[in-house]
């Protein structure tokens, strides 16, 4: 980054902060917790998309495409179906219920302990996920400044907390619309720059073909192997339940429907998302797959997290790995160009031989990258060895035109802050309404006090997220880590709501104990079985529903506010 980038970056950040502060200088709790009631469908749609397609999406998904190919797009196959169900069933119910949080409904339908359980599951999952997503702004700063990730996590974490407690969910919705527009523009710019800078001998079509031959373009997999992470079946069934849980029961989403101006606008926003989501993720993953081809020809580090590499790579072993990687890359370049020539020769046998040589050379380079990660881990068992989230930000910083780099870095950083703010605001409001008010019912009428408490809880969750990020290591990239966490908890949460909506004869105690048993089952299965994580959404939900019915048949029926009989 040069001086122009720094000027643009600082001006952009100050501008976004000033705009948010100006627009949100007078907030009431009703707005802070539920969003602005006059929010239009465009804002709701973009806002819903922005919390999904946040900076994490843009940071991590190209890295996913770079490392594992575009098969991750199947993760979203259940989303359009889920959004249709949310629009047709969940959303009208929430509007009629007129609640502040989704979990208030569980209290009305069942009892207080089930409400607390639902809110607790949400908060546990979201709180842990917040500890993962805090990495997004930290990765950006760490890459730009070359600072250690741990220090940056603390600094950006504090910034996120200040941003959130002074803004609230209205500020999130207001600023995300503009951030989305700038980031989308930046992504298009990055894609154009990438295509223009693809190797001369390949061009766009040759690079796509090379990415395919190197195994990066397997978008759809009909395999029935349950251990595969991404297949059509995990996407349609597991992804359906994951999306249904996220959009139908997660307070960070539900607060947007209950804050929208009308049912019509809420529904249109979600349908907008349902149509755009898969194509958008496909394009972002394709960008990652093309980055893989690009980096076979452009100089790049053996490990993209440069700050972490520099911190440990001091002895000759690391220098040797770097030299091996450079040599392997040169061989891969030659092999790709040889395959491209063979491909144009109409000689199938020659093409097959050249393809095999290309794949072998690429595998050799990847093996050296794995060796580099192993060396880092040997030097420091706590080293962060997943570097795919650094691939796209490295491309932005090193390849985009000056000025555009500053703008995109600033906007991605602001979007990462907004995404965190949305998450922390949802956690703060749920803790205040579903927990604090439960234990302090007389304080419900004091608006100023409620607002202060909501902000304090938001700050507490921010500190929790920073602490989790600092002390918990995980071996996945950001987007997968978040989906895994969601899959462990969301299925049971969805099961609670499905029982509430459709099984009128099940009471509070049956569903409460069934949910605890189902959650225990999912956690035990996760740590003991090797199946694609998306299946846990379906398993958790089904276990909660079936166990609820079974327990209801066993438990004595009891009427009253603590356990309403149907």
């Amino acid at each position: 980054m040069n001086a122009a980038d720094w000027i643009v970056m600082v001006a952009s950040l100050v501008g976004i902060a000033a705009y948010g502060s100006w627009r949100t200088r007078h907030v009431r709790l009703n707005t802070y917790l539920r969003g602005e009631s006059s929010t239009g469908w465009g804002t709701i749609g973009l806002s819903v998309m922005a919390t999904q397609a946040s900076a994490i999406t843009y940071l991590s998904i190209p890295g996913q495409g770079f490392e594992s190919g575009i098969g991750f797009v199947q993760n979203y196959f259940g989303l359009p179906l889920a959004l249709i169900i949310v629009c047709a069933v969940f959303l009208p119910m929430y509007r009629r219920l007129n609640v502040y949080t989704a979990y208030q409904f569980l209290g009305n339908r069942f009892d207080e302990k089930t409400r607390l359980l639902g809110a607790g599951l949400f908060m546990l999952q979201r709180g842990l996920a917040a500890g993962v997503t805090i990495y997004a702004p930290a990765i950006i700063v760490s890459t730009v400044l070359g600072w250690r990730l741990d220090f940056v996590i603390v600094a950006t974490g504090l910034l996120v907390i200040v941003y959130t407690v002074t803004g609230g969910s209205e500020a999130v919705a207001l600023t995300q619309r503009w951030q989305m527009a700038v980031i989308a523009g930046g992504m298009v710019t990055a894609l154009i720059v990438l295509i223009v800078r693809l190797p001369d001998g390949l061009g766009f079509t040759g690079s796509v073909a090379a990415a395919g031959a190197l195994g990066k373009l397997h978008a759809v997999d009909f395999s029935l192997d349950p251990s595969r992470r991404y297949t059509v079946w995990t996407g349609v069934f597991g992804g359906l339940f994951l999306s249904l849980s996220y959009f139908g029961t997660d307070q960070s989403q539900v607060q947007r429907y209950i804050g929208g101006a009308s049912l019509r606008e809420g529904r249109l926003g979600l349908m907008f998302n349902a149509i755009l989501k898969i194509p958008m993720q496909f394009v972002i993953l394709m960008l990652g797959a093309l980055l893989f081809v690009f980096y076979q020809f452009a100089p790049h580090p053996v490990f993209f997290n440069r700050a972490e590499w520099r911190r440990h790579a001091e002895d000759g072993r690391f220098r040797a790995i770097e030299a091996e990687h450079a040599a392997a890359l040169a061989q891969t370049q030659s092999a790709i160009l040889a395959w491209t020539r063979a491909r144009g020769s109409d000689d199938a046998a020659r093409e097959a031989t050249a393809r095999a040589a290309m794949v072998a050379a690429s595998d050799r380079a990847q093996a050296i990258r794995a060796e580099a990660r192993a060396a880092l881990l040997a030097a420091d068992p706590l080293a962060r060895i997943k570097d795919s989230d650094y691939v796209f930000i490295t491309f932005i910083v090193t390849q985009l035109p000056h000025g555009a780099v500053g703008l995109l870095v600033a906007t991605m950083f602001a979007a990462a802050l907004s995404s965190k703010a949305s998450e922390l605001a949802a956690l703060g409001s749920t803790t205040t309404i579903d927990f604090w008010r439960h234990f302090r019912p007389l304080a419900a009428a004091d608006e100023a006090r409620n607002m202060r408490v909501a902000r304090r809880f938001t700050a507490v969750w921010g500190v929790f997220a920073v602490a989790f990020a600092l002390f918990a290591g995980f071996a996945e990239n950001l987007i997968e880590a978040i989906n895994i966490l969601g899959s462990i908890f969301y299925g049971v949460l969805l099961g609670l709501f499905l029982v509430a909506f459709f099984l009128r004869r099940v009471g509070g105690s049956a569903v409460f104990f069934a949910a605890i048993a189902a959650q225990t089952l999912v956690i035990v299965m996760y740590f003991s079985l090797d199946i694609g994580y998306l299946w846990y959404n379906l398993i958790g939900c089904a276990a909660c529903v079936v166990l609820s019915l079974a327990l209801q048949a066993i438990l004595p029926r009891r009427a009253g506010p603590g356990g309403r009989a149907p």
Partner: protein
Amino acid sequence: MTSTPPRDKQPDTEPPGVPGFGTWRAVYLFVFGWFVLVVILLTLFTAMYA
């Protein structure tokens, strides 16, 4: 603030108000059809390149 937020007066049957779509069922069918088309296109893409 009030403990019970103001009720939404909009009826559930409010039409989508999108040209070409008279009912929500039509919108849902369109979205479902779009989803099927996208999956078919991705399958063809995989067959071409993978």
